């Protein structure tokens, strides 16, 4: 196992180091292995989204070292997949065209996009099929339900086979049934393709279901206060969320979140 994402004593303040506001992220250190699935939980406003921005290079840190794939992050990474709470699909494009977007614009693919278009469309269709969106390729985003939009958004985040997938509360806006269904979809994709994932969530069951390791972040300024491996067998199922081992882990995490909130 090699370290793929490394944060060493990273601090970031909106408005720059000199500004007198509290840092959004303070002294954060973590190490994520290649192919690992990591979840980050913590109270709202504690700096989880900011951490993702630092890892992706979208937001420079003021102090500390951020390394991805062995290289210091000093500009936005170019082969990352991202998905958010809002699916942020482009409403003027069909589902298929939305999924193809990264291939049109990414540094690695844009030069050859036209030449390889047929191939890309094939890949996009098969990815959409994997997440259960077969038959919806030519539908507009507003014709899809929230859960279907989020599936399409996941496809868009993965179509260019990124090494790193950053998910910022991707299922938070969905109803419980759809959310649990999508846990399975995401786990399947990850088990097939083995990319590295950082998932931000406030749902502890979601964290335990999906992750190999869970980090608990303190309230602002965000520090990493607790780290917990999840040694449960894969593939995890909805039944397994009722197993004693699963429930104990969730309780353990809940206790830590309680401490963080009370502190």
């Amino acid at each position, binding site marked *: 196992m090699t370290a793929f994402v490394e944060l060493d004593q990273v601090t970031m303040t909106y408005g720059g180091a000199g500004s007198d506001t509290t840092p959004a992220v303070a002294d954060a250190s973590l190490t994520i292995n290649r192919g690992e699935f990591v979840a980050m939980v913590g109270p709202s406003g504690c700096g989880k989204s900011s951490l993702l921005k630092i890892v992706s290079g979208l937001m420079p840190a003021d102090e500390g070292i951020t390394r991805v794939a062995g290289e210091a992050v000093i500009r936005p990474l170019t082969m990352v997949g991202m998905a958010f709470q809002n699916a942020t699909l482009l409403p003027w494009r069909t589902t298929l065209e939305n999924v193809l977007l990264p291939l049109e*614009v990414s540094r690695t693919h844009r030069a050859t996009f036209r030449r390889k278009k047929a191939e890309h469309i094939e890949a996009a269709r098969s990815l959409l099929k994997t997440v259960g969106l077969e038959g919806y390729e030519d539908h507009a985003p507003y014709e899809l339900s929230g859960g279907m939009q989020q599936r399409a958004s996941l496809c868009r985040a993965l179509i260019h086979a990124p090494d790193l997938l950053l998910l910022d509360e991707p299922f938070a806006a969905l109803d419980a049934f759809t959310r649990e269904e999508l846990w399975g979809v995401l786990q399947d994709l990850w088990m097939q393709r083995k990319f590295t994932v950082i998932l931000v969530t406030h749902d502890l069951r979601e964290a335990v279901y999906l992750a190999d390791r869970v980090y608990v972040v303190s309230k602002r300024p965000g520090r990493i206060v607790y780290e917990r491996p999840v040694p449960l067998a894969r593939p995890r199922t909805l039944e397994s969320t009722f197993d004693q081992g699963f429930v104990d882990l969730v309780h353990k995490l809940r206790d830590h979140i309680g401490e963080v909130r009370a502190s």
Partner: protein
Amino acid sequence: MITPIKLAPWLATFGLFAVWELVCRLFSVPEFILPAPSAAIAALIEYWPAIWQNAFYTFWVTMVGFALAVVFGLALGLVTGASALVYSAIYPLLVGFNSIPKVAIVPVLVVWFGIGTIPAILTAFTISFFPIVVNVATGLATLEPEIRDVMRSLGARKIDILLKVGVPRSMPYFFASLKVAITLAFVGTVISETVAGNGGMGHLMLTASSSFRVPLVFAGLLVIAAMGVGMYAIFALVERRFVGWAFRGGDTG
């Protein structure tokens, strides 16, 4: 099928004219103060050749000014919306310029270009330019930060973000502004023709009112209004055609 929604505008217009006619007749309002619609329509028929000629002139002058406004408004809106620096630099200038009553500019334009077509075109242009710029700039500037992050984390170029996301996203704003801009363009042309023209509907109405042919003035107003409504309807159709997606799957047909 004739639905109440489709019928409503016709009924409302007809109702307005009926009330207007009724009021004029009931109170025997003198024709040189407020002519009844029937009188205005009679004047419209009587003076049709002159009206037609002047309306056509006003129409194409307006279209030229409007076309200029579309080209420059779109260009400036894209530049302003894409760059925070340009936005903050020229926004106060734009607002200031838009606050100047255009009737005050016409004499200046006449000094520069003489009486006639060019001041009218430029007035139509200056008055209809602003809503287009503001709308296009707003469409670009309100891009969701998440989609910008998605694009940047793919290594997308600025120009790709602009062309693939920014421009399509600002198109509903652009087409909405065209509907406002086209009616303003008519206002601009007629102002200029009234203050310093030798032709067009503004000139015609000024001449008519100075000889107390008030029904003819009202006939002119009706013709201008009709042209405005017609062009508005055309741009509403164009809007539906090009940015139907922005109407969220309503009856886009």
